Protein backbone atom coordinates (compact mmCIF):
# COMPACT_ATOMS: atom_id res chain seq x y z
CA UNK A 1 0.00 0.00 0.00
CA UNK A 2 1.12 3.50 -0.73
CA UNK A 3 0.67 6.33 1.68
CA UNK A 4 -1.37 9.10 0.25
CA UNK A 5 0.25 12.47 0.65
CA UNK A 6 -1.95 14.19 -1.88
CA UNK A 7 -5.03 14.04 0.34
CA UNK A 8 -3.42 16.35 2.81
CA UNK A 9 -1.89 18.53 0.12
CA UNK A 10 -5.13 19.01 -1.73
CA UNK A 11 -6.91 20.01 1.40
CA UNK A 12 -4.16 22.37 2.37
CA UNK A 13 -4.60 24.07 -0.97
CA UNK A 14 -8.30 24.28 -0.41
CA UNK A 15 -7.86 25.66 3.06
CA UNK A 16 -5.64 28.41 1.78
CA UNK A 17 -8.13 29.29 -0.85
CA UNK A 18 -11.00 29.56 1.56
CA UNK A 19 -8.90 32.09 3.36
CA UNK A 20 -8.79 34.15 0.20
CA UNK A 21 -5.40 33.15 -1.08
CA UNK A 22 -6.65 31.34 -4.15
CA UNK A 23 -5.01 31.95 -7.50
CA UNK A 24 -8.16 32.09 -9.57
CA UNK A 25 -11.60 30.70 -10.24
CA UNK A 26 -10.35 27.18 -10.65
CA UNK A 27 -8.91 27.24 -7.18
CA UNK A 28 -12.14 28.37 -5.63
CA UNK A 29 -13.24 25.34 -3.66
CA UNK A 30 -13.42 23.99 -0.14
CA UNK A 31 -12.37 20.44 -0.85
CA UNK A 32 -10.92 18.56 -3.74
CA UNK A 33 -11.60 14.88 -4.30
CA UNK A 34 -9.58 12.85 -6.74
CA UNK A 35 -11.75 10.17 -8.35
CA UNK A 36 -10.88 7.50 -10.90
CA UNK A 37 -13.07 5.59 -13.31
CA UNK A 38 -11.64 2.16 -14.08
CA UNK A 39 -12.77 -0.99 -15.82
CA UNK A 40 -12.30 -2.98 -19.01
CA UNK A 41 -11.99 -1.35 -22.40
CA UNK A 42 -15.26 -0.21 -24.02
CA UNK A 43 -17.47 -0.55 -20.93
CA UNK A 44 -18.34 3.14 -21.25
CA UNK A 45 -16.05 4.96 -18.83
CA UNK A 46 -15.49 7.98 -21.05
CA UNK A 47 -19.15 8.18 -22.01
CA UNK A 48 -20.07 8.03 -18.34
CA UNK A 49 -17.78 10.92 -17.53
CA UNK A 50 -18.97 12.93 -20.53
CA UNK A 51 -22.55 12.46 -19.44
CA UNK A 52 -21.77 13.61 -15.93
CA UNK A 53 -19.46 16.51 -16.75
CA UNK A 54 -20.93 17.75 -20.04
CA UNK A 55 -24.36 16.10 -20.18
CA UNK A 56 -23.46 14.75 -23.60
CA UNK A 57 -23.39 11.35 -25.23
CA UNK A 58 -22.11 9.86 -28.45
CA UNK A 59 -22.30 6.20 -29.36
CA UNK A 60 -19.06 6.33 -31.36
CA UNK A 61 -16.31 4.37 -29.64
CA UNK A 62 -12.94 6.05 -29.39
CA UNK A 63 -10.42 4.23 -27.26
CA UNK A 64 -9.02 6.57 -24.62
CA UNK A 65 -5.36 7.38 -25.04
CA UNK A 66 -3.77 6.61 -21.69
CA UNK A 67 -5.58 8.83 -19.29
CA UNK A 68 -7.67 11.96 -19.31
CA UNK A 69 -9.46 14.03 -16.74
CA UNK A 70 -12.28 16.44 -16.22
CA UNK A 71 -13.08 18.72 -13.34
CA UNK A 72 -16.53 19.29 -11.94
CA UNK A 73 -17.51 21.26 -8.87
CA UNK A 74 -20.40 20.04 -6.75
CA UNK A 75 -21.99 21.63 -3.73
CA UNK A 76 -22.76 19.80 -0.55
CA UNK A 77 -23.97 21.48 2.62
CA UNK A 78 -22.77 24.83 1.30
CA UNK A 79 -19.32 23.46 0.68
CA UNK A 80 -17.75 23.53 -2.76
CA UNK A 81 -16.23 20.19 -3.60
CA UNK A 82 -14.06 20.11 -6.66
CA UNK A 83 -14.05 16.69 -8.26
CA UNK A 84 -10.97 15.88 -10.28
CA UNK A 85 -12.22 12.89 -12.23
CA UNK A 86 -9.66 10.76 -14.03
CA UNK A 87 -10.84 8.73 -16.98
CA UNK A 88 -8.51 5.79 -17.51
CA UNK A 89 -7.92 3.69 -20.60
CA UNK A 90 -9.13 0.15 -20.07
CA UNK A 91 -6.66 -1.48 -22.40
CA UNK A 92 -3.93 -3.57 -20.85
CA UNK A 93 -1.25 -1.71 -22.79
CA UNK A 94 -1.89 1.41 -20.74
CA UNK A 95 -1.84 -0.32 -17.36
CA UNK A 96 1.56 1.08 -16.37
CA UNK A 97 0.34 4.59 -17.03
CA UNK A 98 -3.08 4.31 -15.46
CA UNK A 99 -2.07 2.57 -12.24
CA UNK A 100 0.38 5.40 -11.61
CA UNK A 101 -2.64 7.64 -11.16
CA UNK A 102 -4.32 5.43 -8.55
CA UNK A 103 -2.12 6.94 -5.90
CA UNK A 104 -3.95 9.59 -3.95
CA UNK A 105 -7.37 8.70 -5.34
CA UNK A 106 -10.09 8.98 -2.73
CA UNK A 107 -12.76 7.24 -4.74
CA UNK A 108 -13.14 4.80 -7.63
CA UNK A 109 -15.98 4.01 -9.97
CA UNK A 110 -15.28 0.44 -11.05
CA UNK A 111 -17.27 -0.12 -14.19
CA UNK A 112 -18.34 -3.16 -16.17
CA UNK A 113 -20.69 -3.58 -19.09
CA UNK A 114 -23.86 -5.58 -18.39
CA UNK A 115 -23.74 -6.86 -21.98
CA UNK A 116 -20.17 -8.10 -21.64
CA UNK A 117 -19.49 -11.07 -19.37
CA UNK A 118 -15.73 -10.66 -19.64
CA UNK A 119 -15.87 -7.14 -18.29
CA UNK A 120 -17.86 -8.41 -15.31
CA UNK A 121 -15.40 -11.24 -14.77
CA UNK A 122 -12.59 -8.72 -14.64
CA UNK A 123 -14.11 -6.77 -11.74
CA UNK A 124 -12.26 -8.87 -9.19
CA UNK A 125 -8.95 -8.10 -10.90
CA UNK A 126 -9.71 -4.40 -10.99
CA UNK A 127 -10.56 -4.55 -7.31
CA UNK A 128 -7.17 -6.11 -6.65
CA UNK A 129 -5.56 -3.31 -8.65
CA UNK A 130 -7.23 -0.77 -6.38
CA UNK A 131 -5.98 -2.57 -3.29
CA UNK A 132 -2.49 -2.78 -4.73
CA UNK A 133 -2.03 0.72 -6.02
CA UNK A 134 -4.39 2.81 -3.94
CA UNK A 135 -4.75 3.38 -0.24
CA UNK A 136 -6.92 1.58 2.30
CA UNK A 137 -9.53 4.26 2.74
CA UNK A 138 -10.35 4.73 -0.94
CA UNK A 139 -14.06 4.27 -1.54
CA UNK A 140 -15.41 2.23 -4.44
CA UNK A 141 -18.72 2.15 -6.28
CA UNK A 142 -19.35 -0.73 -8.68
CA UNK A 143 -21.26 0.40 -11.77
CA UNK A 144 -22.90 -1.96 -14.25
CA UNK A 145 -23.12 0.31 -17.27
CA UNK A 146 -25.25 0.11 -20.44
CA UNK A 147 -28.38 -0.91 -18.53
CA UNK A 148 -30.38 0.62 -21.39
CA UNK A 149 -29.40 -2.43 -23.48
CA UNK A 150 -31.72 -4.84 -21.70
CA UNK A 151 -32.06 -7.16 -24.68
CA UNK A 152 -28.34 -7.79 -24.77
CA UNK A 153 -27.90 -8.18 -21.04
CA UNK A 154 -25.73 -11.11 -19.94
CA UNK A 155 -25.02 -10.00 -16.37
CA UNK A 156 -28.05 -9.95 -14.09
CA UNK A 157 -28.70 -7.17 -11.62
CA UNK A 158 -28.49 -9.70 -8.80
CA UNK A 159 -25.07 -10.92 -9.93
CA UNK A 160 -23.81 -7.36 -9.89
CA UNK A 161 -25.29 -6.62 -6.51
CA UNK A 162 -23.96 -9.84 -5.01
CA UNK A 163 -20.44 -9.20 -6.27
CA UNK A 164 -20.56 -5.65 -4.92
CA UNK A 165 -21.59 -6.99 -1.52
CA UNK A 166 -18.78 -9.53 -1.54
CA UNK A 167 -16.25 -6.87 -2.38
CA UNK A 168 -17.72 -4.36 0.05
CA UNK A 169 -18.64 -1.85 -2.66
CA UNK A 170 -21.78 0.16 -3.29
CA UNK A 171 -23.62 -0.79 -6.47
CA UNK A 172 -25.54 0.91 -9.25
CA UNK A 173 -26.67 -0.12 -12.67
CA UNK A 174 -26.17 2.84 -14.95
CA UNK A 175 -26.62 4.12 -18.48
CA UNK A 176 -24.56 6.96 -19.85
CA UNK A 177 -26.71 6.86 -22.96
CA UNK A 178 -30.06 7.27 -21.20
CA UNK A 179 -28.59 9.19 -18.27
CA UNK A 180 -29.60 6.63 -15.67
CA UNK A 181 -27.91 6.75 -12.27
CA UNK A 182 -24.93 8.70 -13.57
CA UNK A 183 -25.25 11.64 -11.23
CA UNK A 184 -26.35 9.33 -8.44
CA UNK A 185 -23.22 7.23 -8.75
CA UNK A 186 -20.95 10.24 -8.37
CA UNK A 187 -23.05 11.68 -5.57
CA UNK A 188 -22.96 8.42 -3.68
CA UNK A 189 -19.21 8.21 -4.07
CA UNK A 190 -18.83 11.74 -2.75
CA UNK A 191 -21.07 10.85 0.20
CA UNK A 192 -18.96 7.79 0.96
CA UNK A 193 -15.77 9.83 0.90
CA UNK A 194 -17.29 12.47 3.16
CA UNK A 195 -18.49 9.77 5.55
CA UNK A 196 -15.06 8.24 5.62
CA UNK A 197 -13.46 11.59 6.36
CA UNK A 198 -15.89 12.25 9.20
CA UNK A 199 -15.37 8.75 10.53
CA UNK A 200 -11.64 9.26 10.51
CA UNK A 201 -12.04 12.42 12.52
CA UNK A 202 -14.19 10.62 15.07
CA UNK A 203 -11.62 7.91 15.57
CA UNK A 204 -8.67 10.26 15.70
CA UNK A 205 -9.44 13.61 17.37
CA UNK A 206 -5.86 14.69 16.92
CA UNK A 207 -6.72 15.33 13.29
CA UNK A 208 -8.90 18.28 14.13
CA UNK A 209 -6.05 19.99 15.87
CA UNK A 210 -3.92 19.70 12.79
CA UNK A 211 -1.29 17.85 14.72
CA UNK A 212 1.46 16.93 12.29
CA UNK A 213 1.54 13.34 13.52
CA UNK A 214 -2.16 12.75 13.03
CA UNK A 215 -2.89 9.84 10.74
CA UNK A 216 -5.95 8.07 9.48
CA UNK A 217 -4.26 4.73 9.63
CA UNK A 218 -0.70 3.60 9.42
CA UNK A 219 -0.75 4.01 5.70
CA UNK A 220 -3.00 7.02 5.40
CA UNK A 221 -1.88 10.63 5.12
CA UNK A 222 -2.33 13.22 7.79
CA UNK A 223 -5.42 15.32 7.44
CA UNK A 224 -4.88 19.02 7.45
CA UNK A 225 -8.32 20.24 8.36
CA UNK A 226 -11.67 18.97 9.56
CA UNK A 227 -13.62 16.79 7.22
CA UNK A 228 -16.51 18.25 5.33
CA UNK A 229 -19.84 18.30 7.09
CA UNK A 230 -21.52 16.00 4.65
Amino acid at each position, binding site marked *: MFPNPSWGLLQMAATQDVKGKGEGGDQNFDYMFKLLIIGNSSVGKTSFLFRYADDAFTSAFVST*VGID*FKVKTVYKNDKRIKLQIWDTAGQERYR*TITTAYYRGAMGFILMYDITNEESFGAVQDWSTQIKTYSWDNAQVVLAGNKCDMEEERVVSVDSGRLLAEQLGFEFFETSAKDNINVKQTFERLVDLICDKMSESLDTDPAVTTGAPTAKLTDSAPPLQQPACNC
Partner: protein
Amino acid sequence: MGQSFSFFSLKHHPPKQDPTDQKHQPGVFSKLAAPANKPGDFVHLISNCISAASTRTQEYLAFKDLEEKFHPSPRVLIQVFLMTYITQIFSLNVTDAFSCTVTTPEQRVLPGADWVWATLEKPSQNPKIQIVVQMAQMEPGGMNPHEKTVDFRASVGKDCFALFLLFGKQDDQENIYSVRSNNFEAAIAKGNKVDRFSSTEAFGPIFIKSLVRPDWDLNPDLHPLPRSSWIPGRMKK
Protein backbone atom coordinates in the same frame (compact mmCIF):
# COMPACT_ATOMS: atom_id res chain seq x y z
CA MET B 1 9.42 -2.61 -37.27
CA GLY B 2 12.36 -0.85 -38.69
CA GLN B 3 14.79 0.08 -36.02
CA SER B 4 17.68 1.20 -38.09
CA PHE B 5 17.20 4.88 -37.54
CA SER B 6 18.31 5.80 -34.12
CA PHE B 7 19.24 8.72 -32.04
CA PHE B 8 22.82 7.72 -32.60
CA SER B 9 22.55 8.44 -36.25
CA LEU B 10 23.11 11.98 -35.10
CA LYS B 11 26.73 11.05 -35.10
CA HIS B 12 26.63 10.09 -38.71
CA HIS B 13 25.28 13.13 -40.39
CA PRO B 14 25.09 12.84 -44.10
CA PRO B 15 26.97 15.58 -45.87
CA LYS B 16 24.87 18.60 -46.50
CA GLN B 17 23.37 18.60 -49.91
CA ASP B 18 22.17 21.38 -52.03
CA PRO B 19 18.40 21.14 -51.76
CA THR B 20 18.05 21.45 -55.47
CA ASP B 21 20.18 18.34 -55.96
CA GLN B 22 17.51 16.19 -54.39
CA LYS B 23 14.63 17.82 -56.05
CA HIS B 24 14.17 15.33 -58.81
CA GLN B 25 15.34 12.19 -57.07
CA PRO B 26 12.63 9.71 -56.25
CA GLY B 27 12.62 9.14 -52.52
CA VAL B 28 10.93 6.83 -50.10
CA PHE B 29 7.99 9.11 -49.89
CA SER B 30 7.36 9.10 -53.58
CA LYS B 31 7.07 5.32 -53.36
CA LEU B 32 4.58 5.68 -50.59
CA ALA B 33 2.35 7.69 -52.83
CA ALA B 34 2.19 4.92 -55.42
CA PRO B 35 -1.21 3.38 -56.03
CA ALA B 36 -2.22 0.49 -53.82
CA ASN B 37 -1.55 -2.96 -55.18
CA LYS B 38 -3.92 -4.79 -52.93
CA PRO B 39 -7.07 -4.09 -50.97
CA GLY B 40 -6.36 -2.81 -47.48
CA ASP B 41 -3.07 -1.26 -48.46
CA PHE B 42 -3.99 2.12 -47.19
CA VAL B 43 -0.48 3.39 -46.61
CA HIS B 44 -0.44 5.47 -49.75
CA LEU B 45 -3.77 7.04 -48.87
CA ILE B 46 -2.58 8.02 -45.43
CA SER B 47 0.62 9.35 -46.89
CA ASN B 48 -1.34 11.54 -49.25
CA CYS B 49 -3.38 12.89 -46.36
CA ILE B 50 -0.28 13.71 -44.36
CA SER B 51 1.26 15.27 -47.42
CA ALA B 52 -1.78 17.47 -47.93
CA ALA B 53 -1.79 18.48 -44.29
CA SER B 54 1.89 19.23 -44.40
CA THR B 55 1.51 21.27 -47.54
CA ARG B 56 -1.27 23.34 -46.05
CA THR B 57 0.66 23.95 -42.85
CA GLN B 58 3.74 24.93 -44.77
CA GLU B 59 1.74 27.53 -46.62
CA TYR B 60 1.18 29.17 -43.27
CA LEU B 61 4.80 28.77 -42.30
CA ALA B 62 5.99 30.36 -45.50
CA PHE B 63 3.43 33.13 -45.65
CA LYS B 64 4.86 36.59 -45.27
CA ASP B 65 2.52 39.48 -44.92
CA LEU B 66 3.91 42.88 -45.79
CA GLU B 67 2.97 44.38 -42.46
CA GLU B 68 4.47 41.45 -40.56
CA LYS B 69 1.45 41.13 -38.35
CA PHE B 70 0.71 37.53 -39.17
CA HIS B 71 2.34 35.25 -36.63
CA PRO B 72 0.30 32.06 -36.22
CA SER B 73 0.97 30.34 -32.93
CA PRO B 74 2.16 26.73 -32.81
CA ARG B 75 -1.32 25.75 -31.65
CA VAL B 76 -2.86 27.32 -34.75
CA LEU B 77 -0.44 25.46 -36.99
CA ILE B 78 -1.33 22.20 -35.28
CA GLN B 79 -4.99 22.90 -35.90
CA VAL B 80 -4.33 23.70 -39.54
CA PHE B 81 -2.45 20.42 -39.93
CA LEU B 82 -5.13 18.41 -38.18
CA MET B 83 -8.08 20.00 -39.92
CA THR B 84 -6.54 19.37 -43.30
CA TYR B 85 -5.56 15.82 -42.41
CA ILE B 86 -8.97 14.98 -40.99
CA THR B 87 -10.79 16.46 -43.97
CA GLN B 88 -8.66 14.36 -46.31
CA ILE B 89 -8.84 11.12 -44.34
CA PHE B 90 -12.62 11.35 -44.09
CA SER B 91 -12.97 11.92 -47.78
CA LEU B 92 -10.94 8.75 -48.40
CA ASN B 93 -12.94 6.73 -45.91
CA VAL B 94 -10.05 4.93 -44.24
CA THR B 95 -10.84 5.97 -40.68
CA ASP B 96 -11.95 2.45 -39.80
CA ALA B 97 -8.49 1.15 -40.47
CA PHE B 98 -6.37 4.05 -39.32
CA SER B 99 -7.71 6.29 -36.61
CA CYS B 100 -6.64 9.72 -35.50
CA THR B 101 -7.45 10.60 -31.92
CA VAL B 102 -6.87 14.23 -31.06
CA THR B 103 -5.88 14.61 -27.44
CA THR B 104 -7.82 16.86 -25.10
CA PRO B 105 -6.10 19.89 -23.55
CA GLU B 106 -5.94 17.92 -20.31
CA GLN B 107 -4.34 14.93 -21.99
CA ARG B 108 -1.71 17.10 -23.61
CA VAL B 109 -0.40 17.87 -20.16
CA LEU B 110 0.16 14.17 -19.57
CA PRO B 111 1.57 12.27 -22.53
CA GLY B 112 2.28 15.59 -24.19
CA ALA B 113 1.02 14.36 -27.55
CA ASP B 114 -1.13 16.39 -29.90
CA TRP B 115 -2.76 13.40 -31.49
CA VAL B 116 -2.39 9.64 -31.84
CA TRP B 117 -2.58 7.67 -35.04
CA ALA B 118 -3.41 4.01 -34.73
CA THR B 119 -4.14 0.95 -36.76
CA LEU B 120 -7.26 -0.65 -35.30
CA GLU B 121 -8.05 -4.19 -34.35
CA LYS B 122 -11.35 -5.55 -35.47
CA PRO B 123 -13.97 -5.93 -34.18
CA SER B 124 -12.91 -4.30 -30.92
CA GLN B 125 -11.71 -1.13 -32.63
CA ASN B 126 -8.95 -0.97 -30.06
CA PRO B 127 -5.58 0.38 -31.18
CA LYS B 128 -3.06 -2.14 -32.39
CA ILE B 129 -0.06 -0.11 -33.44
CA GLN B 130 0.07 3.48 -32.34
CA ILE B 131 1.97 6.56 -33.33
CA VAL B 132 1.97 9.26 -30.73
CA VAL B 133 2.48 12.54 -32.58
CA GLN B 134 3.72 15.75 -31.17
CA MET B 135 3.96 18.79 -33.37
CA ALA B 136 6.18 21.48 -31.98
CA GLN B 137 8.16 24.53 -32.77
CA MET B 138 11.86 23.96 -32.61
CA GLU B 139 13.40 26.08 -29.96
CA PRO B 140 17.06 26.69 -29.50
CA GLY B 141 18.44 25.24 -26.34
CA GLY B 142 16.07 22.45 -25.57
CA MET B 143 13.28 20.13 -26.55
CA ASN B 144 12.56 18.79 -23.12
CA PRO B 145 8.76 18.68 -23.43
CA HIS B 146 9.35 15.85 -25.86
CA GLU B 147 10.61 13.64 -23.10
CA LYS B 148 7.08 13.26 -21.79
CA THR B 149 5.99 11.84 -25.09
CA VAL B 150 9.01 9.58 -25.20
CA ASP B 151 8.22 8.31 -21.70
CA PHE B 152 4.60 7.78 -22.66
CA ARG B 153 5.61 5.79 -25.70
CA ALA B 154 8.01 3.69 -23.68
CA SER B 155 5.40 2.88 -21.06
CA VAL B 156 2.91 1.69 -23.67
CA GLY B 157 5.46 -0.64 -25.20
CA LYS B 158 6.77 -1.87 -28.49
CA ASP B 159 3.53 -1.34 -30.38
CA CYS B 160 3.74 2.38 -29.85
CA PHE B 161 5.97 4.87 -31.58
CA ALA B 162 6.48 8.54 -31.13
CA LEU B 163 6.71 10.94 -34.00
CA PHE B 164 7.70 14.56 -33.75
CA LEU B 165 6.81 17.03 -36.43
CA LEU B 166 9.06 19.99 -35.94
CA PHE B 167 8.89 23.36 -37.59
CA GLY B 168 10.74 26.61 -37.20
CA LYS B 169 14.21 25.27 -37.84
CA GLN B 170 16.53 28.22 -37.69
CA ASP B 171 17.96 27.93 -41.19
CA ASP B 172 14.82 26.52 -42.72
CA GLN B 173 11.75 28.19 -41.32
CA GLU B 174 9.37 27.03 -44.00
CA ASN B 175 9.66 23.27 -43.71
CA ILE B 176 8.37 20.72 -41.28
CA TYR B 177 10.79 18.05 -40.16
CA SER B 178 9.97 14.69 -38.76
CA VAL B 179 11.76 12.49 -36.31
CA ARG B 180 10.67 9.25 -34.73
CA SER B 181 11.70 8.03 -31.37
CA ASN B 182 11.74 4.24 -31.38
CA ASN B 183 14.81 4.24 -29.30
CA PHE B 184 15.03 7.61 -27.67
CA GLU B 185 15.05 5.92 -24.32
CA ALA B 186 18.13 3.91 -25.29
CA ALA B 187 19.84 7.14 -26.18
CA ILE B 188 18.80 8.74 -22.93
CA ALA B 189 19.99 5.72 -20.98
CA LYS B 190 23.41 6.26 -22.44
CA GLY B 191 23.51 9.81 -21.22
CA ASN B 192 22.34 11.65 -24.28
CA LYS B 193 19.59 14.18 -24.06
CA VAL B 194 16.59 14.53 -26.26
CA ASP B 195 17.22 18.22 -26.50
CA ARG B 196 20.21 17.55 -28.69
CA PHE B 197 17.77 17.33 -31.53
CA SER B 198 17.34 21.04 -31.37
CA SER B 199 20.85 21.55 -32.56
CA THR B 200 21.22 18.79 -35.06
CA GLU B 201 20.07 18.03 -38.53
CA ALA B 202 19.57 14.32 -38.10
CA PHE B 203 15.88 14.01 -38.67
CA GLY B 204 14.57 10.67 -39.64
CA PRO B 205 11.94 9.88 -42.19
CA ILE B 206 8.34 9.59 -41.37
CA PHE B 207 7.60 5.94 -40.90
CA ILE B 208 4.02 5.15 -41.71
CA LYS B 209 5.38 2.74 -44.26
CA SER B 210 7.08 0.69 -41.58
CA LEU B 211 3.74 -0.09 -40.00
CA VAL B 212 2.97 -2.56 -42.70
CA ARG B 213 6.37 -3.07 -44.27
CA PRO B 214 8.91 -3.81 -41.57
CA ASP B 215 11.60 -4.25 -44.17
CA TRP B 216 11.26 -0.67 -45.26
CA ASP B 217 14.69 0.73 -45.80
CA LEU B 218 14.87 3.66 -43.46
CA ASN B 219 16.92 6.45 -44.79
CA PRO B 220 18.81 8.44 -42.21
CA ASP B 221 19.10 11.44 -44.49
CA LEU B 222 17.33 14.65 -43.93
CA HIS B 223 13.63 14.41 -44.57
CA PRO B 224 11.76 17.61 -44.28
CA LEU B 225 8.16 16.94 -45.15
CA PRO B 226 7.87 18.26 -48.66
CA ARG B 227 5.51 20.92 -49.74
CA SER B 228 3.60 18.98 -52.30
CA SER B 229 4.88 15.45 -52.51
CA TRP B 230 6.75 12.84 -50.56
CA ILE B 231 10.00 13.43 -52.42
CA PRO B 232 12.52 14.31 -49.78
CA GLY B 233 14.37 17.51 -50.03
CA ARG B 234 13.79 21.11 -49.38
CA MET B 235 11.33 22.72 -51.68
CA LYS B 236 11.65 26.35 -51.04
CA LYS B 237 10.10 28.67 -53.49
